[in-house]
């Protein structure tokens, strides 16, 4: 009986079984479907991901290209900087620490600060294994000492970091430039070019503009991640690594400049007494830059991080606070009124226009009356012709040219622009201040009120709205010296691979040839020669002996405003005129052109000429020495052939 009841009870369940079987099958089918999706349909994606999990790409470091001068002397290269670290949990503060302090030569106060930092870190569970930086860019001897005593100094670590080094220090720093660490903005911009956090790239100058050549290319090596099970590495690599397994790094290209370090050093020597200014020396026959200096300067090694980040930050703080603007490349990134150095171009314009000739005279009585204004001269020169006007820098003569009804301001601008003044030179190192040759339309756009003839008078003596940069001035005088060929300035002579093979050479490039009447040019040149050689010449008194040169002094008036952030007691300095000299040497057959600017230096004759003449003297000595050396070499060649 009871058995029967039980049997009928089971019947209640019976209708459920089919549904349960169906549900069970359906869910298993779902799992199976998912398996097919993962393993077959998306199989390749997952296999790729699994492969990426175990393969690691190690980046192989490259070497940044070296920058050399014209004679092959190294201006920028790479060196290891040794930083000393301490691991707080491992260092023995009783026995090891005093020795470390002694070896590093740390000052007691500094050592105490470091010791406190180490003890603090050692007591912190999270930081006790993190290295504490003791000293950056440690001397090689100290490194050697630390390494020989390595076993006695547990927890002290020496880590080499590659840094850019500049063997000549501040010499030509603005031109060569320096390095900086990439920031977040660069990384998003340059991602495709393979920069990674912590990399350095050229910040200014050649380092920046030729970054893509200097930088080189990282290599990669694929390896298999460390595995817990010991299996033959080669076997695994053969199985899981795709070819190519190794891409060798490509070292950066070396760059040879047209700069001559010896001349450059002589320029810096000549500028030593000046606070701020710029000098440019250009080869008259090629337009190649032989020297370029901007003062005040900076140490590119420190700015590139050679002495650690603290030193870099401190250096930048000081540089940006300096009212003399050391970060500015004053050879091209700033424009100044050319002052009297513009007069030869005014003269040329007047000669070409037929406004004056060699016999045209002006009577200088200390100035020129024009309209209701009196335009002052530098002195009373009495009766002067073009030659005397150039030699003595008589403004009156040039005011008279400017006042002539056939001499328009556009005419002056045209000649200036023809010589490259007021136009970018395209040297490609730092951002260029273009300068300006004012024209009527410029005044119409920029100046309220009607155009006045007085503007032309000021333009004729290089004042007013006219501005140029120092390199433009040097190149324009080079064009005067070589008879009218304006060169495209060059600073990079060739690019080489790291083993010295020349990849690309840059021949001189002529920008334009200015047609000048030879007679007119001869008159100008004799005037420029007289500036230096004649007794009344503005440069005569200050030219050092043995400097055979020709050129023109200039004193550029500065608008009397107080620059922001300058101590009022020092304002007098910022109101002084800029001293200028532009010329070429030797005077007979010119080879170099030179432009000197001393910011707020005062009169051009007194302040710029000594610098220029010293550079020219040194350059002449260097040239003669080279010539006799090469002549001697030729002699000995001949004598060897003879014997």
């Amino acid at each position, binding site marked *: 009986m009871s058995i029967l*009841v*039980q*049997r009928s*009870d*089971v019947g*209640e*369940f*019976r209708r*459920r*079984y089919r549904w*349960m*079987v169906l549900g*069970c*099958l359906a*869910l*298993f089918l*779902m*799992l*199976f479907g*998912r*398996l*097919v999706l*993962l*393993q*077959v349909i*998306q*199989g390749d*994606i*997952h*296999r790729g*991901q*699994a*492969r990426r*999990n*175990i393969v690691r790409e190690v980046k192989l470091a490259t070497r940044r290209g070296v920058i050399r001068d014209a004679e092959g002397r190294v201006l920028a290269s790479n060196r290891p900087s040794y930083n000393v670290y301490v691991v707080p949990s491992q260092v023995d503060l009783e026995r090891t620490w005093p020795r470390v302090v002694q070896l590093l030569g740390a000052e007691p106060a500094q050592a105490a600060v470091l010791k406190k930092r180490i003890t603090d870190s050692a007591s912190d569970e999270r930081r006790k294994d993190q290295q504490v930086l003791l000293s950056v860019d440690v001397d090689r001897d100290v490194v050697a000492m630390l390494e020989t005593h390595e076993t006695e100094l547990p927890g002290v670590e020496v880590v080499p970091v590659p840094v850019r080094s500049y063997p000549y220090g501040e010499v030509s720093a603005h031109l060569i430039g320096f390095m900086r660490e990439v920031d977040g903005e660069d990384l998003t911009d340059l991602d495709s070019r393979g920069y990674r956090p912590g990399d350095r790239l050229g910040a200014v100058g050649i380092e920046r503009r030729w970054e893509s050549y200097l930088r080189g290319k990282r290599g990669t090596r694929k390896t298999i*991640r460390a*595995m*817990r*099970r*010991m299996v033959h590495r080669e076997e695994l690599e053969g199985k*899981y690594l795709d070819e190519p397994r190794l891409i060798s790094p490509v070292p950066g290209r070396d760059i040879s400049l047209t700069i001559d370090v010896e001349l450059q050093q002589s320029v810096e020597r000549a500028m030593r007494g000046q606070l701020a200014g710029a000098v440019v020396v250009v080869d008259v026959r090629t337009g190649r830059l032989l020297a370029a200096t901007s003062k005040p300067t900076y140490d590119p090694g420190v700015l590139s991080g050679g002495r650690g980040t603290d030193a870099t930050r401190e250096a930048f703080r000081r540089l940006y606070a300096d009212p003399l603007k050391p970060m500015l490349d004053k050879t091209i990134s700033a424009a100044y009124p050319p002052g009297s150095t513009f007069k030869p171009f005014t003269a040329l314009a007047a000669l070409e226009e037929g406004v004056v000739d060699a016999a045209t005279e002006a009577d200088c009585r200390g100035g020129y009356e024009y309209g209701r204004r009196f335009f002052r001269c530098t002195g009373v020169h009495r009766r002067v012709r073009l030659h005397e006007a150039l030699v003595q820098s008589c403004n009156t003569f040039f005011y008279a040219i400017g006042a002539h009804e056939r001499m328009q301001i556009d005419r002056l601008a045209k000649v200036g622009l023809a010589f490259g003044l007021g136009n970018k030179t395209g040297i490609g190192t730092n951002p260029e201040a273009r300068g300006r040759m004012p024209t009527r339309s410029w005044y119409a756009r920029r100046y309220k009120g009607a155009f006045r003839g007085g503007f032309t008078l000021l333009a004729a003596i290089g004042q007013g709205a006219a501005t140029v940069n120092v390199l433009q001035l040097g190149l324009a005088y080079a064009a005067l010296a070589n008879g009218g060929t304006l060169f495209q300035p060059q600073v990079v002579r060739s690019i080489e691979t790291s083993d010295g093979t020349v990849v690309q050479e840059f021949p001189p490039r002529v920008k334009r040839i200015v047609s000048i009447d030879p007679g007119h040019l001869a008159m100008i040149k004799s005037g420029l020669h007289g500036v230096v050689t004649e007794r009344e010449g503005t440069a005569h008194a200050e030219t050092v002996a043995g400097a055979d040169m020709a050129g023109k002094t200039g004193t550029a008036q500065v608008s009397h405003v107080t620059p922001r952030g300058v101590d009022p007691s020092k304002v007098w300095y910022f109101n002084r005129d800029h001293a200028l000299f532009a010329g070429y040497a030797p005077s007979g057959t010119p080879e170099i052109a030179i432009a000197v600017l001393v910011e707020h230096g005062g009169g051009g004759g007194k302040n710029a000429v000594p610098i220029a003449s010293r550079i020219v003297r040194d350059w002449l000595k260097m040239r003669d020495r080279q010539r006799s050396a090469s002549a001697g070499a030729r002699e000995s060649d001949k004598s060897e052939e003879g014997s």
Partner: protein
Amino acid sequence: MVQASRISFRSGPQIDMLLLLCCVTIASFGLVNLYSATSVYIEAGKRSGLADIYVSQVYWIVVGGLLAILAAAIDYRHLERLAYVFYLGGLIALLLVLVLGPGIRGSTRWIQVGSFNFQPSEFIKILLIIVLSKYLHNDPRMEPRRWVDLTVPILLTAIPAALVMAQPDLGTAMIYVLTAVSIVAMLRIRGASLVWGFIFCATVVPVSWKWVLRDYQKARITSFLDPEHDVTGSGWHALQSRTAIGNGGLTGHGYMQGTQNQFGFLPDQFSDFPFAVFAEDWGLLGCTLLLGLYCLLCIWSIHIASQAKDRFGAALAIGVGAMIFWHVFFNMGMAMGLLPVVGITLPLFSYGGSSVLTSMVGLGLLMNVSMRR
């Protein structure tokens, strides 16, 4: 003589060869696979605790086999009488866990007995199945039931589920509920009650999200819904496991060759993700075989239930089958990224004494019912 043997053939206990074969095959696969999963550590030269996993799993299988024989040998109807005693004992053990148990990864699941850790929440699964089966056995009414009529089974399930949630162990609680639902589903329930039940669930889910679930449990669920969002945190396990399975492809990398496993990208590869190891080594072909075996086991347990001679036996068979099924479904589902990561083991595959013993005893009960139909 012939007559006698026929009678003994029909009435005497008869071993269910299909069930036995199925279980032995799955367990062998599990052991072989566990060796692959732990091989990473074994050959590293340092025999750490992890490397011993394989050996101790063999011990557990042997002990589990003996318990299974015991569970199969004693007539299951004796269990019915003792069901409530066992159940109460289990609840006390669960309470003890909450009071005494040491915390492991933020949850307390173990009681230390002597030198080995004992996880009562695993064994409760069997006790719950027994006690629910007893309830069904003693409630043979024919008309459809309302919720009020189901108060007792709901309470029987809710109490251990709540205690386990307090540990907190979401996965195990879920297994309790799903197993209980599967058993109770055999009863006839009024349509209106089902609708109400559905509405109740729909309200409970958001409420429990807000007040009951712990942060790490929520993190697992959110990372399941959006695994790419946080690849180093909670989503990491799921993502690496899915990659391992996909990496297996059609035929797999071969035994002990799966890179995800060998290079240590699979966390918890012994307990939570042995299927990922298996899938990477054997590919779709191996997985289909394994899936088929589990499917056969589940359907066979329904078959056993349908052949059972009383309600208790039928409910017992369905309960064990459901327990196995939900474990398999959740474990594989989470390994494949179909379901969130909740620590649910794969029966006979995953490492763990309590888990192995529970599965083995359950299968022993299944055999018991099968032998006495």
